[in-house]
């Protein structure tokens, strides 16, 4: 029988474009983490190929789970529990992971743990820390989410604020589309902006009221559009920038997004008087965001901790990690547990 510290949990994730499985020991040691992404297949279509979302997961899930177990040299009987993302995400995609996890938990007679994907992104950042000192201010920033939380424990997160319109990742994705750069937009803009001057085109930062923690990125997208095509699209035929001009524009736009994120999360630390910050989610992989947050955190005497880059984007190690914490707390799921889009 396993004890908490060496209990192994199998995590399964299929909420969006990644099919992933991982084995984590004691909620900390990642014995394996397998991620199969459909993004490369989707990129030419700027989205997901018809039916590939659900069907792609269905084809990938069993080999991915087998690979995760074998890479971790773990047999099903070594597991303490099976954890799976049940929300939020695309329902058809979530169902593939959830159904697989239920079947495995039942067949192996192991407890099932249901994990909230956003809480798992927070856990991914906690996994970077050798010791935990709650509470933390937490920023989760991705394509679909931009939210600040007050994190009281791995299982307790009070929402402080969210975006009023678009998530930061969406602001980057849609800017990339306007600039003719490929999906996903965050990495495209980061790459195209390399060597660019972030001060070349000062975009107005959407900081809202001086004490507001809310985010709003939709105006930034329109500002970029009008910069490219004239106010009110008065120059619809204007050519897209290239070379240094493109690099400058990407660097400037990205700077506006990351500066806004950095200022808001440090503002939250100061307002709540919590000198510890966690940052997770796909956009947290962005090097300029990490640098901007680290710079402001140092100035304000805040300890900023980021999820490891490979655990920023969707993965199952964070699902297994949080799954361990939930299992240890006795928060198990029924085999009838449902998935939810939000």
């Amino acid at each position, binding site marked *: 029988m396993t004890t908490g510290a060496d209990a192994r949990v199998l995590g399964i994730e299929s909420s*969006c474009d990644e099919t992933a499985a991982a084995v984590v020991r004691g909620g900390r040691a990642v014995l394996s983490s397998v991620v199969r992404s459909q993004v490369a297949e*989707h990129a030419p*279509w*700027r*989205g*997901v*190929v*018809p*039916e*590939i*979302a*659900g069907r792609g997961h269905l084809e990938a899930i069993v080999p991915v789970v087998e690979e995760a177990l074998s890479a971790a040299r773990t047999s099903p009987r070594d597991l303490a529990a099976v954890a799976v993302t049940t929300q*939020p*995400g*695309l*329902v*058809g995609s979530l169902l593939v992971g959830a159904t697989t996890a239920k079947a495995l938990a039942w067949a192996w007679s192991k407890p099932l743990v249901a994990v909230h994907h956003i809480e798992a992104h927070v856990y991914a950042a906690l996994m970077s820390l050798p010791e935990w000192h709650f509470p933390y201010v937490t920023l989760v920033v991705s*394509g*679909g989410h931009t939210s600040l939380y007050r994190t009281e424990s791995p299982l307790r997160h009070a929402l402080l604020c*969210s*975006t*009023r*319109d*678009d*998530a930061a*990742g*969406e602001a980057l*994705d*849609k800017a990339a*589309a*306007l600039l003719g750069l490929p999906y996903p937009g965050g990495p495209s803009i980061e790459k195209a902006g390399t060597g660019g001057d972030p001060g070349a085109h000062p975009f107005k930062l959407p900081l809202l009221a001086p004490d507001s923690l809310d985010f709003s990125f*939709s105006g930034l*997208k*329109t500002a970029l*559009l*009008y910069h490219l095509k004239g*106010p*009110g*699209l*008065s120059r619809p035929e204007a050519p897209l920038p290239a070379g240094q001009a493109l690099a400058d524009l990407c660097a400037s736009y990205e700077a506006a997004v990351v500066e806004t994120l950095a200022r808001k999360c440090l503002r939250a630390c100061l307002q709540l008087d919590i000198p510890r910050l966690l940052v997770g989610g796909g956009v947290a992989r962005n090097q300029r965001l990490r640098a901007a947050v680290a710079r402001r955190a140092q100035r304000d005497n805040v300890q900023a901790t980021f999820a490891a880059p490979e655990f920023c984007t969707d993965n199952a190690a964070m699902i297994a990690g949080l799954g361990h914490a939930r299992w240890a707390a006795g928060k198990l799921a029924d085999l009838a547990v449902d998935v939810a*889009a*939000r």
Partner: protein
Amino acid sequence: MAPSLVVKLHTTAAEQTRELGRRLGRRLAAGDWVVLYGPLGAGKTTFAAGVAEGLGIREPVTSPTYLLCHEYAGPVTLLHLDAYFELRMDSVLAEGLAERLQGPVVVLVEWAEKMRAWLPPDRIEVSLAHRAEGRELVLQATGPRSRARLEGLEGVEAFLAP
């Protein structure tokens, strides 16, 4: 068949676009579809947020681009769709979302041109466009039901385009 009704409006601030959404939202009932067209930044999500408020929904409305469909509970349930990732939307509609749209709900669609095959014949179409000073909104009814909604729309005189 009666000719379709077209109303051309002009707004100079996001709040006005939202207010027009609110006025339309107050007129809607379960079974109505409002479908939005227009490029990035034209104000679709702003208008949609107004429609939700007009329906009496209190929860703030955010962009459904990634999850494709956000559901809001209120006096009448609102399903807010976004077909920006059109192929992903197509697969999710085929996986069962299309059936849910037939229920007692108001359906609001952004990037409706990317899911044309799934739209009902009788719907309110709103085309948003960038203009030098603000936005142009063209509201159009495509059948008797949507026409009745638009004919009763109040307080839009101030926004009529010249």
